[in-house]
């Protein structure tokens, strides 16, 4: 039966610790330029607004804004202020962090379709002030911004989205 003669020696956790290993700290740090479209988006967040962009060719209103429409492949610069409200397109209730460690209080990431953007166009963010049991697709939510003095022009200027009462 194929494959035959499969080779490879698996190490369990203890075996891995006992094997000869070389450790290396990557220490890779990055300073990313934003580009002009994302810069404008972040400026908007600092002001407590959500900014999108319109493609003059296909008419789509997109968020996060971008310097060119990826479907029409033309440069675009028609920024549009969008609503800070939207609907949950999809969500998850996560008990695991990036390093595979577990958390007790879950995080609720969601894709939120923003009002004013084209249908199906949304952003990734997290939900808050909500019982995970109550979250559902289609739920109306609104952005909760940090206090003006605490905003820095970052995606975390929005603390989370919460259900509209």
């Amino acid at each position: 039966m194929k494959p035959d003669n499969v080779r490879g020696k698996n190490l369990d956790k203890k075996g891995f610790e006992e094997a000869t290993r070389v450790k290396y700290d990557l220490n890779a740090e990055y300073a990313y330029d934003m580009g002009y479209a994302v810069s404008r988006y972040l400026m908007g967040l600092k002001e407590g607004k959500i900014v999108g962009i319109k493609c003059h060719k296909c008419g789509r209103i997109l968020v996060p804004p971008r310097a060119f429409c990826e479907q029409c492949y033309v440069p675009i610069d028609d920024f549009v202020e969008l609503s800070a409200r939207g609907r949950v397109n999809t969500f998850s209730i996560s008990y695991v962090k990036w390093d595979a460690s577990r958390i007790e209080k879950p995080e609720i990431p969601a894709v939120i379709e923003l009002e004013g953007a084209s249908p199906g166009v949304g952003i990734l963010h997290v939900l808050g002030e909500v019982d995970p049991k109550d979250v559902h697709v289609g739920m109306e939510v609104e952005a909760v911004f940090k206090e003006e003095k605490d905003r820095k022009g970052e995606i975390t200027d929005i603390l989370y989205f919460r259900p509209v009462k």
Partner: protein
Amino acid sequence: MGIISKVTKNIEGKAHYYKFPVWYEYTVGVAGEIFAKNLKEQGLLTGAKCPCCGKVYLPPRVYCEECFEEIKEFLALEPVGVVETYCEVYEDIDGNRFDKPKVVAFVRIDGSCGGLFGFIEGGVQMGDKVKAQLVEKRKRTGTVSDIVCFKKVG
């Protein structure tokens, strides 16, 4: 209307910082474990001999890259060899100047067609015969960090 005309208007540009949060722990592999054992226990290096062409690889590996045959014969080799090339390093990786320049050499190990990089202490010339100075046995890890430096012999 292109993008360029808008780029410098009313945009606060700044950078976003990120540190990639991972580190690595590499296993040394089947051949590497044999190298580790010989170095730790006997203070010897290890070569791997191809059954087909007879080439002795150092560092050792389980296959010959030219014949693509599996290598099962490993030879313990004295950590002596010849300086094939060297350079003098004046700065560290961040550009800070050393008090004294460091000499890094590629040493072709006797009995193999391979070799190792190492620091040279006590002066160097092309073609010098050198021997590895190892850390004391109980502190060895079995990797090339066990080699403190190479020194001229004879």
